[in-house]
Protein backbone atom coordinates (compact mmCIF):
# COMPACT_ATOMS: atom_id res chain seq x y z
CA UNK A 1 0.00 0.00 0.00
CA UNK A 2 2.68 2.46 0.94
CA UNK A 3 4.91 2.14 -2.15
CA UNK A 4 1.75 2.45 -4.22
CA UNK A 5 0.83 5.67 -2.43
CA UNK A 6 4.39 6.95 -2.71
CA UNK A 7 4.31 6.26 -6.42
CA UNK A 8 1.09 8.25 -6.85
CA UNK A 9 2.37 11.17 -4.77
CA UNK A 10 5.57 11.17 -6.80
CA UNK A 11 3.76 11.03 -10.17
CA UNK A 12 1.37 13.75 -9.00
CA UNK A 13 4.27 15.99 -7.98
CA UNK A 14 6.14 15.31 -11.18
CA UNK A 15 3.20 16.21 -13.41
CA UNK A 16 2.53 19.36 -11.42
CA UNK A 17 6.21 20.21 -11.73
CA UNK A 18 6.03 19.65 -15.49
CA UNK A 19 3.10 22.08 -15.70
CA UNK A 20 4.83 24.78 -13.68
CA UNK A 21 8.09 24.27 -15.59
CA UNK A 22 6.41 25.78 -18.65
CA UNK A 23 4.40 28.56 -17.00
CA UNK A 24 3.31 30.55 -20.06
CA UNK A 25 1.86 27.59 -21.95
CA UNK A 26 0.32 26.28 -18.74
CA UNK A 27 -1.26 29.63 -17.92
CA UNK A 28 -2.79 29.89 -21.36
CA UNK A 29 -4.40 26.47 -21.06
CA UNK A 30 -5.57 27.14 -17.51
CA UNK A 31 -6.99 30.54 -18.45
CA UNK A 32 -8.93 29.11 -21.40
CA UNK A 33 -10.41 26.48 -19.09
CA UNK A 34 -11.17 29.11 -16.45
CA UNK A 35 -12.94 31.45 -18.87
CA UNK A 36 -14.95 28.63 -20.37
CA UNK A 37 -16.13 27.66 -16.89
CA UNK A 38 -16.49 31.17 -15.48
CA UNK A 39 -19.00 32.15 -18.19
CA UNK A 40 -21.75 29.68 -17.27
CA UNK A 41 -20.84 29.96 -13.58
CA UNK A 42 -21.37 33.74 -13.65
CA UNK A 43 -24.68 33.32 -15.45
CA UNK A 44 -25.64 30.76 -12.84
CA UNK A 45 -24.73 33.25 -10.11
CA UNK A 46 -27.01 35.87 -11.67
CA UNK A 47 -29.88 33.45 -12.28
CA UNK A 48 -29.57 32.14 -8.75
CA UNK A 49 -29.82 35.66 -7.38
CA UNK A 50 -32.80 36.51 -9.60
CA UNK A 51 -34.47 33.37 -8.32
CA UNK A 52 -34.10 34.63 -4.77
CA UNK A 53 -35.66 37.87 -5.93
CA UNK A 54 -38.62 35.85 -7.21
CA UNK A 55 -38.94 33.90 -3.96
CA UNK A 56 -38.99 37.17 -2.11
CA UNK A 57 -42.24 38.17 -3.73
CA UNK A 58 -43.70 34.76 -4.25
CA UNK A 59 -45.30 34.47 -0.80
CA UNK A 60 -46.85 37.88 -1.22
CA UNK A 61 -49.60 36.97 -3.63
CA UNK A 62 -52.44 39.43 -3.50
CA UNK A 63 -55.49 40.31 -5.59
CA UNK A 64 -56.47 43.90 -6.15
CA UNK A 65 -60.20 44.43 -6.63
CA UNK A 66 -61.16 47.69 -8.33
CA UNK A 67 -64.67 48.91 -7.53
CA UNK A 68 -66.86 50.16 -10.33
CA UNK A 69 -66.47 53.92 -10.80
CA UNK A 70 -69.18 55.84 -9.05
CA UNK A 71 -69.85 53.26 -6.37
CA UNK A 72 -69.84 54.69 -2.87
CA UNK A 73 -67.75 53.69 0.12
CA UNK A 74 -70.67 51.87 1.79
CA UNK A 75 -70.74 49.43 -1.09
CA UNK A 76 -67.03 48.93 -0.67
CA UNK A 77 -67.43 48.27 3.09
CA UNK A 78 -70.25 45.81 2.50
CA UNK A 79 -68.30 43.86 -0.06
CA UNK A 80 -65.21 43.86 2.18
CA UNK A 81 -67.27 42.36 5.04
CA UNK A 82 -68.67 39.76 2.72
CA UNK A 83 -65.19 38.82 1.57
CA UNK A 84 -63.84 38.57 5.10
CA UNK A 85 -66.23 35.71 5.82
CA UNK A 86 -64.88 33.56 3.07
CA UNK A 87 -62.57 30.73 4.12
CA UNK A 88 -60.31 31.07 1.11
CA UNK A 89 -59.46 34.67 1.95
CA UNK A 90 -56.81 35.42 4.52
CA UNK A 91 -57.10 39.18 4.87
CA UNK A 92 -58.98 42.06 3.37
CA UNK A 93 -57.66 45.58 3.21
CA UNK A 94 -59.44 48.62 1.86
CA UNK A 95 -57.61 51.41 0.10
CA UNK A 96 -60.22 54.11 -0.26
CA UNK A 97 -60.13 56.37 -3.24
CA UNK A 98 -59.21 59.27 -0.95
CA UNK A 99 -56.26 57.37 0.51
CA UNK A 100 -55.09 56.36 -2.92
CA UNK A 101 -55.24 59.93 -4.14
CA UNK A 102 -53.31 61.14 -1.16
CA UNK A 103 -50.57 58.57 -1.72
CA UNK A 104 -50.41 59.40 -5.36
CA UNK A 105 -50.03 63.08 -4.58
CA UNK A 106 -47.23 62.37 -2.13
CA UNK A 107 -45.29 60.01 -4.30
CA UNK A 108 -45.55 61.27 -7.80
CA UNK A 109 -44.81 64.37 -9.72
CA UNK A 110 -48.40 64.29 -10.87
CA UNK A 111 -49.57 66.21 -7.79
CA UNK A 112 -49.90 69.46 -9.74
CA UNK A 113 -51.95 67.74 -12.41
CA UNK A 114 -54.09 66.00 -9.80
CA UNK A 115 -54.82 69.32 -8.10
CA UNK A 116 -56.65 70.65 -11.11
CA UNK A 117 -59.04 67.70 -11.22
CA UNK A 118 -62.49 68.48 -9.85
CA UNK A 119 -63.15 65.07 -8.46
CA UNK A 120 -61.17 62.02 -7.47
CA UNK A 121 -60.80 59.80 -10.53
CA UNK A 122 -59.59 56.83 -8.50
CA UNK A 123 -61.87 53.96 -7.48
CA UNK A 124 -61.90 52.28 -4.10
CA UNK A 125 -59.63 49.26 -4.06
CA UNK A 126 -59.94 46.17 -1.92
CA UNK A 127 -56.69 44.24 -1.57
CA UNK A 128 -57.35 40.60 -0.82
CA UNK A 129 -54.78 38.10 0.30
CA UNK A 130 -55.97 34.65 -0.62
CA UNK A 131 -55.49 31.73 1.74
CA UNK A 132 -53.13 29.52 -0.22
CA UNK A 133 -53.12 26.16 1.48
CA UNK A 134 -51.34 24.34 -1.25
CA UNK A 135 -49.71 25.07 -4.53
CA UNK A 136 -52.88 24.01 -6.23
CA UNK A 137 -53.63 26.79 -8.68
CA UNK A 138 -57.22 25.56 -9.05
CA UNK A 139 -58.19 26.93 -5.64
CA UNK A 140 -56.93 30.34 -6.58
CA UNK A 141 -58.58 30.11 -9.98
CA UNK A 142 -61.93 29.30 -8.38
CA UNK A 143 -61.65 32.34 -6.14
CA UNK A 144 -60.66 34.49 -9.10
CA UNK A 145 -63.60 33.29 -11.13
CA UNK A 146 -65.96 34.04 -8.33
CA UNK A 147 -64.47 37.52 -7.82
CA UNK A 148 -64.71 38.24 -11.52
CA UNK A 149 -68.42 37.44 -11.45
CA UNK A 150 -69.14 40.06 -8.76
CA UNK A 151 -71.17 42.93 -10.26
CA UNK A 152 -69.69 45.52 -7.90
CA UNK A 153 -66.23 45.12 -9.36
CA UNK A 154 -64.78 46.80 -12.36
CA UNK A 155 -61.74 44.54 -12.61
CA UNK A 156 -59.57 42.18 -10.60
CA UNK A 157 -55.83 41.95 -10.87
CA UNK A 158 -53.76 39.09 -9.60
CA UNK A 159 -50.35 40.41 -8.62
CA UNK A 160 -48.90 36.98 -9.01
CA UNK A 161 -49.09 36.93 -12.77
CA UNK A 162 -45.77 38.60 -13.24
CA UNK A 163 -44.12 36.44 -10.58
CA UNK A 164 -45.17 33.37 -12.52
CA UNK A 165 -43.89 34.80 -15.75
CA UNK A 166 -40.69 35.79 -14.01
CA UNK A 167 -40.23 32.27 -12.68
CA UNK A 168 -40.95 30.80 -16.10
CA UNK A 169 -38.31 33.04 -17.63
CA UNK A 170 -35.88 32.01 -14.91
CA UNK A 171 -36.54 28.33 -15.53
CA UNK A 172 -35.99 28.90 -19.19
CA UNK A 173 -32.73 30.72 -18.56
CA UNK A 174 -31.60 28.00 -16.17
CA UNK A 175 -32.11 25.41 -18.89
CA UNK A 176 -30.26 27.72 -21.26
CA UNK A 177 -27.38 28.10 -18.81
CA UNK A 178 -27.24 24.35 -18.38
CA UNK A 179 -26.98 23.79 -22.13
CA UNK A 180 -24.44 26.58 -22.39
CA UNK A 181 -22.42 25.04 -19.54
CA UNK A 182 -22.59 21.61 -21.17
CA UNK A 183 -21.21 23.03 -24.43
CA UNK A 184 -18.44 24.93 -22.68
CA UNK A 185 -17.71 21.86 -20.56
CA UNK A 186 -17.23 19.92 -23.77
CA UNK A 187 -14.90 22.71 -24.85
CA UNK A 188 -12.89 22.29 -21.65
CA UNK A 189 -12.72 18.55 -22.28
CA UNK A 190 -11.31 19.15 -25.75
CA UNK A 191 -8.86 21.84 -24.61
CA UNK A 192 -7.45 19.52 -21.98
CA UNK A 193 -7.49 16.60 -24.39
CA UNK A 194 -5.50 18.59 -26.90
CA UNK A 195 -3.01 19.76 -24.26
CA UNK A 196 -2.49 16.17 -23.18
CA UNK A 197 -2.11 15.08 -26.80
CA UNK A 198 0.73 17.60 -27.21
CA UNK A 199 2.31 16.40 -23.99
CA UNK A 200 2.14 12.81 -25.24
CA UNK A 201 3.84 13.85 -28.46
CA UNK A 202 6.56 15.69 -26.55
CA UNK A 203 7.22 12.67 -24.37
CA UNK A 204 7.04 10.05 -27.08
CA UNK A 205 10.57 8.76 -26.36
CA UNK A 206 9.83 8.29 -22.71
CA UNK A 207 6.56 6.50 -23.49
CA UNK A 208 8.23 4.14 -25.96
CA UNK A 209 11.12 3.30 -23.68
CA UNK A 210 8.84 2.77 -20.69
CA UNK A 211 6.75 0.46 -22.84
CA UNK A 212 9.89 -1.41 -23.97
CA UNK A 213 11.09 -2.04 -20.42
CA UNK A 214 7.74 -3.47 -19.37
CA UNK A 215 5.60 -0.51 -18.31
CA UNK A 216 1.88 -1.24 -18.39
CA UNK A 217 -0.55 1.02 -20.21
CA UNK A 218 -1.87 2.14 -16.83
CA UNK A 219 1.60 3.10 -15.68
CA UNK A 220 2.28 5.06 -18.87
CA UNK A 221 -1.10 6.76 -18.79
CA UNK A 222 -0.92 7.78 -15.13
CA UNK A 223 1.25 10.93 -15.38
CA UNK A 224 -0.99 12.25 -18.16
CA UNK A 225 -4.10 11.66 -16.06
CA UNK A 226 -2.48 13.64 -13.26
CA UNK A 227 -1.61 16.43 -15.70
CA UNK A 228 -5.25 16.59 -16.82
CA UNK A 229 -6.39 16.60 -13.22
CA UNK A 230 -4.06 19.49 -12.35
CA UNK A 231 -5.11 21.49 -15.38
CA UNK A 232 -8.76 20.95 -14.48
CA UNK A 233 -8.24 21.77 -10.81
CA UNK A 234 -6.21 24.92 -11.46
CA UNK A 235 -8.64 26.00 -14.21
CA UNK A 236 -11.55 25.46 -11.83
CA UNK A 237 -9.87 27.50 -9.10
CA UNK A 238 -9.18 30.34 -11.53
CA UNK A 239 -12.79 30.16 -12.78
CA UNK A 240 -13.97 30.46 -9.18
CA UNK A 241 -11.75 33.51 -8.69
CA UNK A 242 -13.13 35.05 -11.90
CA UNK A 243 -16.72 34.53 -10.73
CA UNK A 244 -15.72 36.08 -7.42
CA UNK A 245 -14.42 39.13 -9.33
CA UNK A 246 -17.68 39.34 -11.29
CA UNK A 247 -19.54 39.33 -7.97
CA UNK A 248 -17.29 42.02 -6.49
CA UNK A 249 -17.74 44.24 -9.54
CA UNK A 250 -21.52 43.82 -9.71
CA UNK A 251 -22.25 43.93 -5.98
CA UNK A 252 -22.30 47.72 -5.59
CA UNK A 253 -24.23 48.57 -8.80
CA UNK A 254 -26.86 45.96 -7.91
CA UNK A 255 -27.24 47.37 -4.42
CA UNK A 256 -27.58 50.87 -5.85
CA UNK A 257 -30.20 49.67 -8.31
CA UNK A 258 -32.24 47.77 -5.74
CA UNK A 259 -32.17 50.71 -3.33
CA UNK A 260 -34.00 52.79 -5.95
CA UNK A 261 -36.78 50.19 -5.65
CA UNK A 262 -36.75 50.52 -1.83
CA UNK A 263 -35.43 46.97 -1.73
CA UNK A 264 -32.74 45.56 0.50
CA UNK A 265 -31.91 42.99 -2.13
CA UNK A 266 -28.19 42.42 -2.61
CA UNK A 267 -26.22 40.11 -4.88
CA UNK A 268 -25.15 37.01 -2.95
CA UNK A 269 -21.81 35.39 -3.75
CA UNK A 270 -21.57 31.80 -4.98
CA UNK A 271 -22.50 29.36 -2.25
CA UNK A 272 -19.86 27.04 -0.83
CA UNK A 273 -21.48 24.06 -2.50
CA UNK A 274 -21.65 25.82 -5.88
CA UNK A 275 -17.99 26.84 -5.53
CA UNK A 276 -16.98 23.28 -4.71
CA UNK A 277 -19.06 22.01 -7.63
CA UNK A 278 -17.26 24.26 -10.10
CA UNK A 279 -13.86 23.12 -8.89
CA UNK A 280 -14.86 19.46 -8.69
CA UNK A 281 -16.52 19.44 -12.11
CA UNK A 282 -13.47 21.13 -13.58
CA UNK A 283 -11.09 18.60 -12.05
CA UNK A 284 -13.28 15.74 -13.29
CA UNK A 285 -13.41 17.26 -16.78
CA UNK A 286 -9.61 17.51 -16.70
CA UNK A 287 -9.27 13.89 -15.70
CA UNK A 288 -11.81 12.79 -18.31
CA UNK A 289 -10.18 14.84 -21.09
CA UNK A 290 -6.78 13.42 -20.23
CA UNK A 291 -8.15 9.91 -20.08
CA UNK A 292 -9.76 10.23 -23.51
CA UNK A 293 -6.64 11.76 -25.05
CA UNK A 294 -4.31 9.26 -23.40
CA UNK A 295 -6.43 6.24 -24.32
CA UNK A 296 -6.67 7.36 -27.93
CA UNK A 297 -3.17 8.68 -28.56
CA UNK A 298 -1.20 6.22 -26.45
CA UNK A 299 -2.59 3.30 -28.39
CA UNK A 300 -1.78 5.03 -31.64
CA UNK A 301 1.63 6.29 -30.62
CA UNK A 302 2.91 3.22 -28.83
CA UNK A 303 2.51 1.17 -31.94
CA UNK A 304 6.22 0.60 -31.68
CA UNK A 305 6.76 -1.00 -35.08
CA UNK A 306 7.45 2.36 -36.62
CA UNK A 307 9.90 3.61 -34.02
CA UNK A 308 12.06 0.73 -33.07
Amino acid at each position, binding site marked *: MRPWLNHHVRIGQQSLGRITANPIAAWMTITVIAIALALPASLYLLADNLLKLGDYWDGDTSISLYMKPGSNSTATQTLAKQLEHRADILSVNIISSAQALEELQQQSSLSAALDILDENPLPDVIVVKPQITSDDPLVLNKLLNWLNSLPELDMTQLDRDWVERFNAILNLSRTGIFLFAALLGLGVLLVIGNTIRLEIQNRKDEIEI*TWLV*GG*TTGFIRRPFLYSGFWYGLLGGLLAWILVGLVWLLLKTPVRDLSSTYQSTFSLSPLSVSASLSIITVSAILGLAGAWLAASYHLYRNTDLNQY*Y
Partner: protein
Amino acid sequence: MINFEHVSKRYPGGMDALLNINLQINSGQMVFLTGHSGAGKSTLLKLIALIETASRGNVYLDGENLNKAKHRNIPYIRRKIGMTFQNNQLLFDRTVFDNVALPLIVCGYSHRDLGRRVRAALNKVGLLSKERRNPITLSGGEQQRVGIARAIVNKPKLLLADEPTGNLDPEMSAEVISLFSQFNQVGVTVIIASHDLQMISRLPYPALTLQQGQLV
Protein backbone atom coordinates in the same frame (compact mmCIF):
# COMPACT_ATOMS: atom_id res chain seq x y z
CA MET B 1 13.86 -21.51 -23.32
CA ILE B 2 13.08 -20.10 -26.76
CA ASN B 3 11.37 -22.07 -29.49
CA PHE B 4 10.47 -20.96 -33.01
CA GLU B 5 8.12 -23.25 -34.93
CA HIS B 6 7.70 -22.44 -38.64
CA VAL B 7 7.78 -18.76 -37.89
CA SER B 8 7.27 -16.22 -40.66
CA LYS B 9 6.97 -12.50 -40.38
CA ARG B 10 5.57 -10.43 -43.21
CA TYR B 11 5.46 -6.66 -42.78
CA PRO B 12 2.63 -4.64 -44.24
CA GLY B 13 3.52 -4.07 -47.85
CA GLY B 14 4.42 -7.69 -48.43
CA MET B 15 8.06 -7.70 -47.33
CA ASP B 16 8.99 -11.04 -45.80
CA ALA B 17 11.39 -10.37 -42.92
CA LEU B 18 11.47 -13.97 -41.73
CA LEU B 19 10.52 -17.14 -43.59
CA ASN B 20 9.74 -20.46 -41.93
CA ILE B 21 12.20 -20.17 -39.04
CA ASN B 22 12.68 -23.18 -36.77
CA LEU B 23 15.09 -22.82 -33.91
CA GLN B 24 15.59 -23.67 -30.28
CA ILE B 25 17.76 -21.83 -27.79
CA ASN B 26 18.23 -23.53 -24.45
CA SER B 27 18.37 -21.89 -21.09
CA GLY B 28 21.88 -20.70 -20.21
CA GLN B 29 23.11 -20.54 -23.81
CA MET B 30 24.89 -17.61 -25.37
CA VAL B 31 24.17 -17.33 -29.09
CA PHE B 32 25.12 -14.91 -31.82
CA LEU B 33 22.61 -14.02 -34.48
CA THR B 34 24.31 -12.87 -37.61
CA GLY B 35 23.66 -11.89 -41.20
CA HIS B 36 23.61 -8.82 -43.40
CA SER B 37 21.50 -5.86 -42.40
CA GLY B 38 17.95 -6.55 -43.49
CA ALA B 39 18.41 -10.30 -43.05
CA GLY B 40 15.87 -10.34 -40.23
CA LYS B 41 18.06 -10.26 -37.10
CA SER B 42 16.21 -7.39 -35.45
CA THR B 43 12.84 -8.85 -36.43
CA LEU B 44 13.75 -12.13 -34.75
CA LEU B 45 14.67 -10.32 -31.51
CA LYS B 46 11.48 -8.23 -31.72
CA LEU B 47 9.38 -11.37 -31.93
CA ILE B 48 10.94 -12.65 -28.69
CA ALA B 49 10.48 -9.28 -26.94
CA LEU B 50 6.87 -9.04 -28.20
CA ILE B 51 7.56 -5.82 -30.04
CA GLU B 52 6.27 -7.67 -33.09
CA THR B 53 4.11 -10.74 -33.43
CA ALA B 54 4.64 -13.53 -35.94
CA SER B 55 2.48 -13.59 -39.05
CA ARG B 56 2.64 -17.38 -39.12
CA GLY B 57 3.99 -20.09 -36.84
CA ASN B 58 4.52 -19.98 -33.08
CA VAL B 59 7.13 -18.40 -30.82
CA TYR B 60 7.49 -19.90 -27.35
CA LEU B 61 9.22 -18.27 -24.43
CA ASP B 62 9.52 -20.50 -21.35
CA GLY B 63 6.80 -22.67 -22.86
CA GLU B 64 4.40 -19.76 -23.28
CA ASN B 65 3.07 -19.15 -26.78
CA LEU B 66 3.80 -15.47 -27.38
CA ASN B 67 1.38 -15.29 -30.30
CA LYS B 68 -1.42 -15.88 -27.86
CA ALA B 69 -0.23 -13.41 -25.23
CA LYS B 70 -2.92 -10.94 -24.27
CA HIS B 71 -2.12 -7.29 -24.84
CA ARG B 72 -2.30 -6.47 -21.13
CA ASN B 73 0.13 -9.30 -20.29
CA ILE B 74 2.82 -8.12 -22.69
CA PRO B 75 4.49 -5.77 -20.15
CA TYR B 76 4.82 -8.61 -17.63
CA ILE B 77 6.39 -10.93 -20.20
CA ARG B 78 8.80 -8.15 -21.19
CA ARG B 79 9.94 -7.72 -17.61
CA LYS B 80 11.47 -11.19 -17.81
CA ILE B 81 13.65 -9.99 -20.68
CA GLY B 82 16.48 -7.50 -20.65
CA MET B 83 17.07 -5.83 -23.97
CA THR B 84 19.64 -3.43 -25.38
CA PHE B 85 19.00 -1.48 -28.54
CA GLN B 86 20.96 -0.39 -31.54
CA ASN B 87 20.45 3.28 -30.71
CA ASN B 88 20.54 2.57 -26.94
CA GLN B 89 17.11 4.19 -26.40
CA LEU B 90 18.31 6.31 -23.48
CA LEU B 91 16.43 9.32 -22.16
CA PHE B 92 18.51 12.49 -22.21
CA ASP B 93 16.22 14.46 -19.88
CA ARG B 94 17.40 12.54 -16.81
CA THR B 95 20.50 11.12 -15.18
CA VAL B 96 22.20 7.81 -15.85
CA PHE B 97 20.81 6.61 -12.52
CA ASP B 98 17.23 7.44 -13.49
CA ASN B 99 17.64 5.78 -16.89
CA VAL B 100 18.82 2.56 -15.30
CA ALA B 101 16.12 2.74 -12.62
CA LEU B 102 13.25 2.86 -15.13
CA PRO B 103 12.59 -0.91 -15.38
CA LEU B 104 12.45 -1.07 -11.57
CA ILE B 105 10.13 1.94 -11.25
CA VAL B 106 7.84 0.32 -13.80
CA CYS B 107 7.69 -2.78 -11.58
CA GLY B 108 6.82 -0.67 -8.53
CA TYR B 109 10.04 -1.09 -6.54
CA SER B 110 10.38 1.01 -3.42
CA HIS B 111 12.93 3.77 -3.48
CA ARG B 112 15.31 2.04 -1.07
CA ASP B 113 15.63 -1.24 -2.99
CA LEU B 114 15.89 0.75 -6.16
CA GLY B 115 19.10 2.58 -5.24
CA ARG B 116 20.86 -0.60 -4.22
CA ARG B 117 19.99 -2.49 -7.38
CA VAL B 118 20.70 0.40 -9.75
CA ARG B 119 24.14 0.90 -8.22
CA ALA B 120 24.86 -2.82 -8.42
CA ALA B 121 24.02 -2.76 -12.14
CA LEU B 122 26.08 0.40 -12.75
CA ASN B 123 28.96 -1.12 -10.83
CA LYS B 124 28.86 -4.19 -13.03
CA VAL B 125 29.25 -2.09 -16.20
CA GLY B 126 31.87 0.15 -14.54
CA LEU B 127 29.82 3.36 -14.54
CA LEU B 128 29.13 3.78 -10.84
CA SER B 129 31.08 7.04 -10.73
CA LYS B 130 28.89 8.51 -13.49
CA GLU B 131 25.43 7.86 -12.05
CA ARG B 132 24.65 11.60 -11.71
CA ARG B 133 25.72 12.44 -15.27
CA ASN B 134 23.35 12.98 -18.15
CA PRO B 135 23.88 10.14 -20.66
CA ILE B 136 24.34 12.67 -23.47
CA THR B 137 27.67 13.66 -21.90
CA LEU B 138 28.94 10.07 -22.12
CA SER B 139 30.84 8.40 -24.95
CA GLY B 140 29.18 5.92 -27.31
CA GLY B 141 30.65 2.96 -25.46
CA GLU B 142 29.55 4.34 -22.10
CA GLN B 143 26.03 4.94 -23.42
CA GLN B 144 25.95 1.35 -24.64
CA ARG B 145 26.94 0.24 -21.14
CA VAL B 146 24.20 2.36 -19.57
CA GLY B 147 21.79 0.52 -21.87
CA ILE B 148 23.25 -2.80 -20.68
CA ALA B 149 22.94 -1.75 -17.03
CA ARG B 150 19.26 -0.93 -17.67
CA ALA B 151 18.78 -4.33 -19.33
CA ILE B 152 20.23 -6.27 -16.40
CA VAL B 153 18.96 -4.19 -13.47
CA ASN B 154 15.86 -6.37 -13.28
CA LYS B 155 18.01 -9.55 -13.15
CA PRO B 156 16.33 -11.05 -16.20
CA LYS B 157 16.89 -14.66 -17.23
CA LEU B 158 17.12 -13.63 -20.87
CA LEU B 159 19.21 -10.88 -22.39
CA LEU B 160 18.65 -9.69 -25.96
CA ALA B 161 21.20 -7.35 -27.54
CA ASP B 162 20.65 -5.74 -30.93
CA GLU B 163 23.99 -4.71 -32.49
CA PRO B 164 25.61 -3.88 -29.15
CA THR B 165 28.96 -3.24 -30.83
CA GLY B 166 27.58 -1.47 -33.88
CA ASN B 167 29.17 1.92 -33.32
CA LEU B 168 32.10 0.90 -31.14
CA ASP B 169 35.80 0.46 -31.86
CA PRO B 170 37.24 -3.09 -31.54
CA GLU B 171 38.56 -2.50 -28.03
CA MET B 172 35.24 -1.28 -26.68
CA SER B 173 33.42 -4.03 -28.57
CA ALA B 174 35.54 -6.63 -26.82
CA GLU B 175 34.73 -5.05 -23.46
CA VAL B 176 31.01 -5.10 -24.13
CA ILE B 177 31.08 -8.72 -25.34
CA SER B 178 33.06 -9.76 -22.27
CA LEU B 179 30.34 -8.15 -20.14
CA PHE B 180 27.73 -10.29 -21.85
CA SER B 181 29.78 -13.45 -21.35
CA GLN B 182 30.06 -12.60 -17.65
CA PHE B 183 26.27 -12.51 -17.40
CA ASN B 184 26.10 -15.75 -19.34
CA GLN B 185 28.47 -17.35 -16.87
CA VAL B 186 26.02 -16.69 -14.04
CA GLY B 187 23.25 -18.43 -15.97
CA VAL B 188 21.66 -15.72 -18.09
CA THR B 189 20.61 -16.75 -21.60
CA VAL B 190 22.12 -14.25 -24.03
CA ILE B 191 21.23 -13.62 -27.67
CA ILE B 192 23.34 -11.06 -29.51
CA ALA B 193 22.47 -9.82 -32.99
CA SER B 194 25.58 -8.61 -34.78
CA HIS B 195 26.89 -8.30 -38.30
CA ASP B 196 30.52 -8.22 -37.07
CA LEU B 197 31.51 -11.64 -38.45
CA GLN B 198 35.20 -11.16 -37.68
CA MET B 199 34.54 -10.66 -33.99
CA ILE B 200 32.07 -13.54 -33.83
CA SER B 201 34.48 -15.99 -35.48
CA ARG B 202 37.03 -15.31 -32.72
CA LEU B 203 34.57 -16.14 -29.96
CA PRO B 204 33.65 -19.63 -28.75
CA TYR B 205 29.89 -19.13 -29.05
CA PRO B 206 27.54 -20.65 -31.62
CA ALA B 207 26.25 -18.35 -34.34
CA LEU B 208 22.95 -18.57 -36.19
CA THR B 209 23.14 -17.01 -39.64
CA LEU B 210 20.16 -15.41 -41.28
CA GLN B 211 19.98 -14.80 -44.99
CA GLN B 212 16.98 -13.09 -46.54
CA GLY B 213 14.80 -14.11 -43.64
CA GLN B 214 15.89 -17.74 -43.56
CA LEU B 215 18.32 -19.65 -41.33
CA VAL B 216 21.28 -21.10 -43.20
